[in-house]
């Protein structure tokens, strides 16, 4: 009659598998149309940038394919030309193909924007992690140092740097890196402080984990989400900073056609031909927008509270 089933400790043999954490994030990201559009554009930009620099001849792959001209080739006969089939974005004040320069410029903006984040992550991440984990005096010291860096006028620091090492890709790169890590440091510190209190960290201590293990295996992986989002938003900021510095003349120098340099060049002839400023300007704006959309999408996708 009634089956005498022992109240088994063997409760659950079949637990349905659910999506992994990263897959779930990707699904959520995909649902955000703007984010996907941004990602598509960024991927396209990366391809464009690569094609503009490789092979290492002026104009790269795109010139070889006859899609565009040589970004450095001057042509005093054909200056300030309107867009034609041969020069789809016209020519600039020295007769150079604007399109080729815009394409080349994408490589500069992307490389600075993205690669500088590694520098920011290294400096800001270490400071934040140390401050959060060790607390006490170390925290105090590091945070006061962070406050000082924050209050210090960035432009001044950049000028000093550039004056000392001369304007170039690398001096700009390092200058942007050392003036922009503060936000990330504070973020990482906040993350570490909140994760430190979590019971799974206490549990890890109970299982005999050393402090290094705790940081590497528990604190770091769990703070990744907001850090990734912050770094993603840092890219458009860095791109803009480079453009602004180059425009001011303390960044990339001509004839390297970063978008900022192009705007600086074109500014002189702005009433004669505003397109010289508009094309690189739109390029900057579109790139920044794309990364911002991606950042928004990532933030929503990685938010643990929005998990089902």
């Amino acid at each position, binding site marked *: *009659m*009634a*089956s*005498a*089933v*022992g*109240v*088994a*400790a*063997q*409760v*659950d043999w079949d637990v349905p598998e659910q999506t992994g954490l990263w897959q779930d994030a990707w699904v959520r990201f995909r649902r955000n149309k703007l984010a996907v559009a941004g990602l598509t554009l960024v991927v396209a930009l990366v391809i464009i940038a690569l094609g503009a620099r490789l092979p290492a001849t002026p104009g790269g792959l795109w010139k070889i394919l006859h899609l565009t001209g040589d970004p450095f080739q001057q042509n005093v006969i054909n200056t300030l030309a309107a867009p034609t089939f041969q020069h789809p974005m016209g020519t600039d004040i020295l007769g150079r193909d604007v399109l080729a320069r815009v394409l080349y410029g994408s490589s500069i903006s992307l490389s600075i924007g993205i690669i500088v984040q590694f520098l920011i992550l290294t400096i800001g991440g270490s400071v934040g992690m140390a401050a959060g984990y060790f607390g006490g005096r170390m925290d105090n010291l590091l945070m006061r140092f962070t406050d000082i860096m924050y209050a210090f006028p960035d432009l001044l620091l950049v000028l000093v740097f550039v004056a000392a090492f001369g304007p170039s890709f690398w001096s700009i790169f390092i200058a942007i890196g050392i003036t922009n890590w503060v936000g990330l440091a504070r973020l990482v510190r906040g993350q570490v402080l909140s994760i430190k209190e979590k019971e799974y960290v206490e549990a890890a201590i109970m299982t*005999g984990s050393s402090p290094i293990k705790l940081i590497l295996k528990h604190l770091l992986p769990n703070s990744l989400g907001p850090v990734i989002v912050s770094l993603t938003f840092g890219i458009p900021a860095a791109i803009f900073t480079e453009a602004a510095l180059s425009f001011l003349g303390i960044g990339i120098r001509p004839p390297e056609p970063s978008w900022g340099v192009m705007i600086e060049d074109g500014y002189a002839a702005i009433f004669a031909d505003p397109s010289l400023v508009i094309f690189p300007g739109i390029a900057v704006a579109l790139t920044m927008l794309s990364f911002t959309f991606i950042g928004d999408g990532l933030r929503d996708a990685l938010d643990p509270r929005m998990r089902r």
Partner: protein
Amino acid sequence: MAQTLLQVEDLHTQFFTSRGVVRAVDGVTLHVDAGETLGVVGESGCGKTMTALSILRLVPDPGKITSGRILFRGRDVTKMDDEEIREFRGNDVAMIFQDPMTSLNPVTKVGFQIEEAMTAHDRFTEKLAKGRVVELLKRVRVPAAETRVKDYPHQFSGGMRQRAMIAMGLSNEPALLIADEPTTALDVTVQAQIIQLMKQLNRELGTAMMLITHNMALVASLCQRVVVMYAGRIVEEGPVEQIFKSPQHPYTWSLLRSVPRVDEARKDRLVSIKGLPPDLLNPPPGCKFHPRCPFVIDRCKVEEPELEEVGLNQTARCWVLMRNVKEEDIDAAKQSALSRDAAQKLKAVPPAEVGDGSAGR
């Protein structure tokens, strides 16, 4: 003859999610008479809170009441228009929730919030409302009520906040008060004070109460009748004395025996219901409790039982019924099934010696 205040008839509330339809309330019929306290018992996900929210038409998206009637003093709540329902909520039926900290607005003074509850229904003018607030707080035994009205919620302790919530709930003299886990978040001694308060209020004001809880002892203390819910349905109903003395549904029986009693002298083994609460997206066929039931028979797996009368005013939804279960099956249901085999293998690693923590193999 007791007057029936609230009559819920075959209520169905469903959630339309991207993964399917969740039948949160799956055909619930119950009633509350004037002045009585009804207990609604079950664990998380059984539908007890959704039933209460349905009565007040506060079901959140993507949920909807899909069928059934909710009659309050004869009027069907599901058919009320917006103005009638606003009049109904807080006035005829009031509800207090589990966590008073999140139910109270942290940036408004407590006195003002209670006033608002009254002025919102136009039963009291502002002046009258202000006067009643102190009276209400005194009624719920908040000490120094006159000064306390000017405090903010964070200045109240947990127990006092709950009293303030009760005061708010009672401010418009509702006929029925629905309390959803009112003492779960409180300390034990404070819980006792609230229980005592509720008993007193029921005596003094004659307010009927629907007490939603998973705590059987609370029901024993406060309620006259009790309804046990599982997977959105009622599985047993009856007067409290009978249900506690001879529960007929195996779930009710298991619930009563899975909670340790503070007055137990021996360490009797607890009955633990195996498995997990059912997935409401894909409920099991037949009786919804059958995968976890220690006394399941074949019929349970295919055919869902109806609520049948099993005693005076007591109904249960079961093919077996506890009175038909043999002693030895009950004993078997309490046996330990710890994997001794696994335990043996694990003990092969010796426990650490004194002063030594790195014993390798």
